[in-house]
Each structure stands twice: as C-alpha cells, then as structure tokens.
C-alpha cells in the first residue's frame, strides 16, 4: 500500500498536467476540424432558393395529365413544367447553355416532344407528368448553311422539318416520331419566290414576292403531296403595294398571318381570306384559339395611357366576345405576347379561359378571361447581371435618439425637455406594440428598418433585360421593381452613393449602363429602399462612357459624387458642384480585346475636372500579341485590413504588402510554343507599376478570380493535364516594415517590389463562380466560395489555398498552423453551403458584410437565386441557436442551493465538534 502511494504521489501533479494537455489537444483539434456545416434543423432558416426558367419561348397547356400544368421551353434552354394553379416549377430540365441546348420545338400531346440543338439536332420524347425521358434520337442535316432558318413542327404523328433555301427551293423532310426513320426521302419544292420576309403558319409557308408595284402574295402547303401554290396579287388584299408579313403567337389553331400589321389573313380551303377582325395596335400579339365551338382571335397589347389590353373576336363574324375583356387596369405588362391559351366551357356554358402572357420584361403571367392575374413569375431574375446589398435606414425612434446626441449646443433645459420628449415617444411606441394583437403581426412585418445586427438588408438586382428589383434579403420577397427598356446592361455598374446611415437623407443608389440603341451612357438614380427615382432620375448622356467611379469625399448632403470618364477623355461630375472635391483621384481603363490598360489622374483646375493620361501598359507584351483580358478584380472598396502582418512560428512577424490600389488582371493569349498562355498580372492602378506577375503555359483562363487583403487566387484550365487548377499568390513586404506603423500607404512613393509566395492546387471539379467572404472588420477568417458546375457552392478555407503550405512542415510551421501541402484540394460535402438544393448555372456569387463580425451574407445568381449567410470562423459573437438556457439555469440554481446548504451543514458540524 505504501508503494502505491509512492507511485501516486508524484503522479498526482503529472496527472493534472496530463489532463491539462489533453485539454489543449481538444482546443487544437477543434481548430483543425475546419469542416463546419449547418445542422439539419437549420434548413431554410437562414437561406432561401428561388428557381427560375428564363424567358418563355414556347408554352403549351398540358390538359391530358391529371395534374394540370403548363409545359414551357425557354430562351435559357430550360424545359420545365409549371403548376397551372400556382406557377411553381414541378419539374425542370436544364439543357446545355450553348447552342447545343437550344430548344427549337415543343410539342405537347399525349407525350411531350422537344427538338433541341443546332445541327446536329436531338429529338427527345418525355413523359409530361414526371419529366422522365422516354427516348431520344439524333438528326444531322447535310445542308449546314441554311440550318439556322429551319422550322419544325409535328403533324399527324410525324415530325416535319422544313428548310427554306431563299430564292431557290424548300426542303421538307418528315420523320417518324417514334423511331426517327425518315418517311420517304427529303422532298424539294421548287420555290424561287421565297425570301427572308416569309412567315410560317403551319403548314403553310407564305411570302410576298415580286417587283415593287406588282407584288404577289404566295403560299404553299409544304406537307401536302401535291404542290399547290396559292397565288394572289397583293393589291387584292390591301391597298398598298408594300407588304410585311408576321406570324401569329402562341400555337394558333388555324393557319393565319398578319399583313402589314393591320389585317389578319387566314388560309381556308387553299384560299386567302381577310378576316373582319380589327387589330387593336400595330404591335398587338395575336393568336387564334379554340373557343369551344368556333375559333376566336385573342389579342393583347399595351399602350401608355390605359396600360394592358385584352380582347377577343369571333373569327367568322368579327364580333367582340364580351367574356374575354380586360377590365382591370394593369400597367406593368410592357409589350405583352401571348404564349399560350386554353379555353373551356364551364358547366354554366360560360367561357373560361387561361391566357399565358410573356411581357417584354421577361415576366410571365397567367390570366383569366377578365384580365385577372392568377400568378406571375419574374423570369428576368434568371439573368442577373449586377447586385448590391443596401443597408436599411434606422427606425424613426433610433434616428431621434441619434440626433439628440448629435446636438451639442443648447441649454441644459432644452436637452432635458428633448430627453423627456423622446422618452415619451418610446413609451408610446411600447404601448402601441403591446396593444397590437398577435394576429396582425404578420401583415405589417417590415417597416423596413435596420435590425440590431444589421442582418436585414435590401438586395438591389439589375437584370439583363433592364428590369431592376429590390428584394428583401431575409425572405427573398420582391419589394419593388422598375423596368427600364432602354437600359443595355452590358458592363453595368452600381454604386451606393449614400447609405441610409445619414438621416434625414435617404439612401441613394446609381446604376450606370448603356442606352440600348445609341450605347451612350444611361444613368439611373434611385432610392434603393422604396424603388423611387431620385436625383438624376433617368439621365441619358450624349456620349459613351468609358469608366466611372464615385468620389471618396462626400458633399454636405453626405452624397458621393459620380465621376464619369467619357470616350473623349472628358470628365463629368454628378452633381456638378462637387467638382472641387476631386483630389487625388486615379482611374484606369482596360480594353478587353487588346489587353491594353491605361491610367488617368483626375485633377480639378478651378473650373473643371481634367483627366490626364499618366501610364499605359500592354499586358500581352505588345499590341499584336492577341492577348485578351478575361477577368479584372480590384479589392472591394469597403474592405478593411485587420492585421498588417502574420506572426510566424519563430516569433518574428511577416508583414503583408497591403496596397489598396492593386488590381489583378488575368489575360489569355496564344503562344508560339505553348499553344495558349494565361498571365496573371498585379498592377498598381495609380502608378502603373507591375507588382507581381505569373504565367501558366498550355492553359486557358477562366473568368474566376478572388482578390482580398494581400492574397489573390485565380482559376485556369490546364490543357496539358486536362484539369482545373487554382493558383494563389500572397504578397509580403518581408520581415521589416517598409513604412512606420500607422503611416498611410502611397502608391507613388513606394519603389520596392513585394515578395510573392505562389502555389497552385488542383481543383477536382469545374468551377463556375468564385468570391471571398466579406465581414465588417475583416477579423474573421477569409473563406473562398466556389460555385461548381455540379450545382454546389463549396466554402473553401483560405488555409487550404494558402501558398505557404509547406511540403514537409517544420515544427515552427506546424505551430503556426500551416497545413502540409497536398496537390488536390478537398471538396467535402460538409462544406457545401447550399446542401442538396442544387443550383443550376451559377454565374456569380456576391458577398456583403453584416453587422455581426462573424457573419457574411451571400447571394448566388445564375438560373436560380440562392441566399444564405456564412460564418467562416463560426459564430463566435452569437450564442448557438441550440443554447440550452434551461440547463444552465438549473445548474446555476442547483449550485447556489448546494453551496448554501453545505454552508449550513458545515456550521452545524462545527458546532457539534465544539460541544464535544
């Protein structure tokens, strides 16, 4: 027994030490275990997904299946089934985004048939109820030249392909839908009278031909065995001698066309017949639908005065059909187009119609006969081109408190009365909130004010078609929308020129784009919270814009001025009185196709702002190197730097090269020896100095790059090894600081080149978008978000991309936390932030900081929209949402109880001892 105690005695401290080290191990282990993901019960708590299909190209009602639906094929090469009642996507197939996925035909009968691609074509047959592919066959045309004019339709169970060869003949082939066997050979109809202006109204092909003055209108049924050309002088149908043909929209049931945007002509018994139906507008969209009994003409158009119109006429008599008439005043359907109609007679012998309307702003509406919108889909959001997160304004009460503390002047009594007043207001607000019954809470959910952690924001989205949306980030609900048909969104940029932090001024957001026709600058300024136009409103410039930016300084209304550099190197400032504020401004202009970059210095000479060319470089070496810029990334202007250096294992500090003006250019070009080369160049945009560069041979660049702090990453495809690689760089000043601590960095004063750490890693997937997380003070780790073609967004810690990862780490490096080098990056499923919600064709990821340092807001755009929030270093500033308040209360109460009871018992024992 004595021996045991001897052993135990010295071991007691040892055990404590051991336990302590175990504890450390646990801490370390938790650091290394970087794979973090959400819990299963958090699905949909912080994230939402919206699925879109794109602008509808073809639509047909499926009335055969039990679940009624609309089958649509879209410009985005998507085939989908929409629920007739709600408009939700029931199933969806996403085809190739290139021309190989282009849908040419949609035919719904018992089964669904599509023709997609562009020579070779693929004919597929689907089950409409489930969306399962039944069979497919491929078809190649010999005549490549005119393939783009080919037309497809289904007639009597045969797939008809018509290929007009203008000025010569029409080639018609018919295929058995089931087997793909060509039924007979391709027939050639001699028709020298066909031209580009012809219109197809199945199965007739109609043209206007002949010399001016004596024009003829000709039509031929291309599927009939006997070639019979219907021929009539144009002057018999219309008074004029000129003629323009237009086909009808939305699966017309009778062959017909519109002549000269005025007359509706049908082809009946191989004769042209001008109907008595009057067209409401020259741009009216017309279709002929089965009105259960007699065919009727349905037309829609919109004008500026009354908005949307919907009318129907009987084709035989030309009389109005009163049941179909838009009675409601709808203003927001610009240039409607009928995509499909379905009319049935109800039990009471009333006409019930469903009309599917696609507008110029890509929105899709399903209407009833009286113009009531059953549902609508904003398909413009399938093509988002620019995104900005905007803070919400503080509530009136908070604003009052802030202004109270802002006011320094005034007597003590004034301050006291103000205090009383605000407290009275607070009391009122409290009483009001108490009085409000529980049920009404849902209705007025958001008075759109900032929440405590600034997690509630507005996302402003600019779409390709020119529609601008304001979206609530927590729910994904659209708060406002604005359609600007003249906005060409190629290269559009958005600036928050005033945040909502400056009451009484409202937030101010400016969109700089191009005019659709003139490609001159188009500026749209709006209040991002309400969606109303402010300031410059919609301003159409008379010159093309080359580059734009906003000033750092604000004017007395806290507004950042907008600076535009136009094609003639003149500078425009909005508002103009802010011109004297221009100081130390530099701009660069990069030409995408020549890889030439020029720098400008902007100065104010007392009258106006002048742009002076200061530097110019050719990233491809010389001007005929045929290099082109694939991606340009500068640092986010709102980015902060938390620490200027890294502490190494040997207790020395490695200082980062932090240049706010550094821009990464990724270029690609041909090379005589190595086929293609990808060059990444870091250029100081103020001085034009190249800070670092890296070339990759036999590679093709992908437009994905990340630039934050002192670290850069870009993605390229390695042609030699046929794999995607991600190259990373980190720039360091070295172990000595170049500038004294706290001194401002100046691009013009620094002459030294930074040290560059480089590394490349294999990415075992095909990435489509990349972004880095963004937090308010950059205290939190940076993670890189990579969207993959599989439809997943993977959160990749920078630790894995770090170029300093050693092959065999020394103890010091291990202490620093560097992960040993491995050529392939792990893509664990735990790191997928959108879990099993697959996102198709993600093309951008946008991140924004929130008021919580740990949390970054993420929006991925593509065919779908996906919003979530990520916490790269875990939510260190929030209690976990499964925090057990109950347990901790019980434990605390029990401890207090135990301590007092033991105290009582101890004193009793002492007393007893004393009495002994």
């Amino acid at each position, binding site marked *: *027994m*004595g021996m045991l*105690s001897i052993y*135990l*005695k*010295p071991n007691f401290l040892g*055990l*404590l030490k051991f*336990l302590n080290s175990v*504890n450390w191990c646990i801490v370390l282990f938790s650091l290394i275990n970087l794979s*973090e*993901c*959400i*819990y*299963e019960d958090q699905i949909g708590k912080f994230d939402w997904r919206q699925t879109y299909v794109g602008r509808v190209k073809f639509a047909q009602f499926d009335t055969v299946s039990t679940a009624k639906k609309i089958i649509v094929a879209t410009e985005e090469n998507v085939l989908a089934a929409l629920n007739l009642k709600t408009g939700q996507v029931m*199933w969806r*197939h*996403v*085809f*190739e985004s*290139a021309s*190989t996925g282009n849908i040419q035909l949609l035919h719904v009968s018992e089964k669904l048939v599509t023709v997609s691609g562009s020579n*070779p074509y*693929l004919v*597929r047959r689907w089950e409409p109820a*489930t*969306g*399962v*592919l*039944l*069979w*497919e066959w*491929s078809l*190649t045309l010999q005549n490549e030249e005119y393939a783009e004019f080919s037309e497809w339709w289904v007639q009597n169970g045969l797939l008809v392909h018509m290929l007009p060869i203008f000025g010569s003949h029409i080639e018609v082939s018919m295929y058995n839908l089931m087997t793909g066997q060509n039924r007979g050979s391709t027939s050639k109809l001699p028709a020298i009278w066909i031209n580009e202006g012809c219109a197809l109204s199945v199965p007739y092909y109609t043209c206007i031909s002949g010399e001016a003055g004596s024009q003829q209108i000709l039509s031929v049924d291309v599927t009939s065995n006997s070639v019979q050309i219907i021929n009539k002088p144009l002057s018999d149908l219309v008074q004029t001698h000129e003629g323009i043909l237009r086909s009808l929209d939305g699966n017309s049931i009778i062959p017909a066309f519109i002549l000269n945007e005025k007359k509706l002509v049908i082809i009946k018994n191989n004769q042209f017949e001008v109907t008595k139906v009057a067209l409401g507008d020259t741009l009216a969209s017309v279709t002929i639908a089965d009105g259960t009994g007699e065919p009727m003409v349905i037309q829609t158009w919109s004008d500026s005065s009354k908005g949307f119109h919907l009318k129907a006429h009987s084709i035989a008599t030309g009389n109005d059909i009163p049941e179909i008439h838009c009675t409601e005043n709808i203003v927001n359907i610009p240039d409607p187009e009928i995509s499909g109609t379905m009319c049935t007679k109800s039990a009471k012998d009333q006409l019930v119609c469903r009309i599917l309307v696609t507008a110029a702003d890509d929105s899709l509406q399903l209407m009833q006969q009286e113009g009531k919108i059953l549902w609508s889909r904003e398909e413009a959001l399938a093509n988002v081109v620019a995104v900005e997160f905007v803070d919400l304004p503080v509530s009136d009460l908070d604003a009052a408190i802030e202004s109270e503390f802002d006011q320094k002047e005034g007597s003590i009594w004034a301050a006291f009365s103000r205090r009383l007043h605000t407290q009275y207001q607070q009391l009122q607000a409290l009483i009001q909130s108490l009085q409000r019954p529980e049920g009404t809470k849902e209705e007025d959910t958001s008075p759109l004010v900032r929440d405590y952690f600034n997690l509630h924001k507005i996302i402003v989205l600019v779409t390709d078609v020119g529609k601008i949306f304001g979206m609530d980030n927590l729910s994904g609900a659209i708060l406002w929308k604005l359609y600007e048909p003249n906005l060409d969104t190629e290269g559009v940029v958005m600036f928050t020129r005033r945040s909502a932090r400056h009451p009484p001024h409202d937030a101010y957001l400016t969109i700089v784009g191009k005019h659709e026709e003139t490609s001159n600058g188009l500026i749209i300024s709006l209040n991002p919270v309400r969606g109303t136009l402010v300031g410059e409103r919609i301003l159409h410039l008379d010159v093309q814009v080359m580059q734009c930016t906003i000033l750092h300084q604000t004017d007395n209304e806290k507004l950042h001025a907008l600076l535009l550099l136009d094609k003639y190197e003149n500078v425009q400032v909005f508002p103009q009185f802010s011109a004297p504020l221009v100081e130390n401004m530099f701009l660069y202009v990069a030409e995408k196709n020549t890889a030439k970059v020029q720098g400008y210095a902007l100065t104010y000479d007392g009258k106006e702002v002048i742009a002076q060319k200061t530097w110019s470089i050719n990233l491809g070496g010389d001007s005929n190197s045929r290099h082109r810029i694939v991606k340009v990334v500068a640092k986010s202007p709102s980015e902060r730097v938390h620490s200027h250096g890294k502490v190494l294992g040997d207790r020395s500090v490695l200082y980062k090269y932090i240049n706010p003006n550094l821009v990464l250019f990724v270029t690609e070009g041909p090379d005589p020896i190595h086929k293609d080369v990808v060059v990444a160049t870091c250029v100081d945009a103020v001085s034009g100095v190249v800070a670092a560069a890296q070339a990759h041979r036999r590679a093709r660049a992908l437009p994905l790059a990340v630039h934050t702090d002192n670290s850069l990453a870009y993605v390229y495809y390695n042609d030699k*090894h*046929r*794999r995607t690689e991600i190259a990373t760089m980190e720039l360091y000043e070295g172990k000595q600081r170049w500038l004294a601590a706290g001194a401002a960095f100046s691009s013009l004063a620094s002459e030294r080149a930074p040290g560059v750490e480089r590394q490349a890693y*294999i990415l*075992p*997937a*095909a990435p489509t978008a990349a972004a880095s997380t963004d937090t308010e003070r950059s205290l939190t780790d940076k993670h890189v978000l990579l969207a993959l*073609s*599989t*439809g997943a967004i993977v959160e990749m810690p920078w630790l894995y991309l770090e170029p300093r990862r050693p092959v065999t780490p020394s103890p010091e490096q291990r202490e620093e936390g560097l992960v040993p080098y491995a*050529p*392939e990056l792990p893509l664990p*499923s*735990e790191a*997928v932030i959108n*879990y*099993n*919600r*697959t996102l198709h*064709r993600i093309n951008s990821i946008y991140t924004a900081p929130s008021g919580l340092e740990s949390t970054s807001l993420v929006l991925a755009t593509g065919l779908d929209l996906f919003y979530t929030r990520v916490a790269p270093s875990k939510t260190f500033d929030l209690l976990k949402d*499964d925090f*057990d308040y109950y*347990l901790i209360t019980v434990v605390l109460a029990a401890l207090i109880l135990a301590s*007092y009871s033991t*105290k009582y018992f*101890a004193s009793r024992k002492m007393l007893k001892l004393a009495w002994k």
Partner: protein
Amino acid sequence: MKCYIALVLLNVFINVLCASNPIEEDIGNGRYAIEGRVFPPEELEVGNWQVETRVHVNGGEYIGFIRDDSTFVVRNIPSGSYVVEVLHPDYMYEPVRVEINSKGKYRARKVNYIQTSQVIQVPYPLRMKALSKFRYFQVREQWRLTDFLFNPMVIMMVLPLLLIMILPKMMNDPEAKEDLKQISNLAKMGEMPEMSEMFTSLFSGGASAKASTSKAKQVKKRQ
C-alpha cells in the same frame, strides 16, 4: 455467384442495346455518343429519380438525361477526352474519364487528377453506381449523461476529488494520513465569502508543502 451472373446478363443486355442501335454510334460526321447505365441507390428506386439525376460531360458542356430504363446516352460529342459525372443532390457517384480517339474507339478509366497518365480501366458502356449518400449536415450533439461524465473537464474535477478523498481512506499508511491531514487542514472550510483567501492559501501553502514532502520522498528513496 448469382450476382456475377446477373452482371453478365446485364452486360449482354447493354451490348444488345448497342447492337440494336448502330446508327447512334457514329453519325458519320465525327460525332460520337457516350453511353452508360446508372444504378440508383435502393432507396430511390421507387420514385422518379431519373428527373433528379443528371449526366454532365466536362462540367456541363454536354448534358445527358436518364431514360426510364435508367440508361443514358450523351450524343454528338467529337473525339477527345471527357469527364463524365452523374449528379444527384443526395447521392455521390464516382466520375469516369472517357476517351474517344479519332477512329471512334472508346476507353473509360478512373479519373485521376494527380497522376494524369495512370490508367485504371473501367468497363464501357459506363456503369455508374451510387457510392454513398452525401453528408451535408452536422449532427446536433444531444445531452447524454455519459457524455457529461466523460467530458474531460468533469473528469478533471472528479478524478482529483476521488484521489484526495477516497484513496487515503483505503490505505492505512500513517504517512499518507499525515499528508491527508495536511491537505484537509489547508482545505478547511472557512466562511463562504472568503473564497479568495482560501484559494491563495491552498495554492501557495499547498505547493510548498507538497514540494517539501516530495523532496523528503526522494531522500528516502535514495536511502
């Protein structure tokens, strides 16, 4: 053995399929088709998993859809090297690299991004089997008594307590008793609020006492 026969049969079936559709192999313009069959996990076999599952060739450059008999054909592909992936939101499939040479010969092999020249052939037409289910979510830790007891912090608290309280009672060694007395003297319960004083006395006094005893031990040992 049964399984093997089934596989052979399946192979035959695929071969027959290919044979019946000779036009699909080569259309004559240097375009080829990649064929295969997807084996869904058993849980999915009843639903229409075909709609959820996609076949991507080179990350979506060419897309194939799965027919209701669970085969797929990706058509109109020029000769070259392609990575074929079967994608499902919940199940993982291993990608395969398919090489089609200019004569139309097919070779399927495992994807190896690191040693790109290494060839481990897999059968063609492709047979894609679901490997496992994706684990997207963390499991929430639940409060269990065993977890609590084996928590290192709890062990750290309880074990010393055991050592201090129970062990000396077990041994009748007078020396140990003396030690224990010393310890209990030090840890003598004062009034509740004077915790700090107690701690300081415990740490400073305890340490010196322990040091002296251990020294004494060492001396003893040497003797």
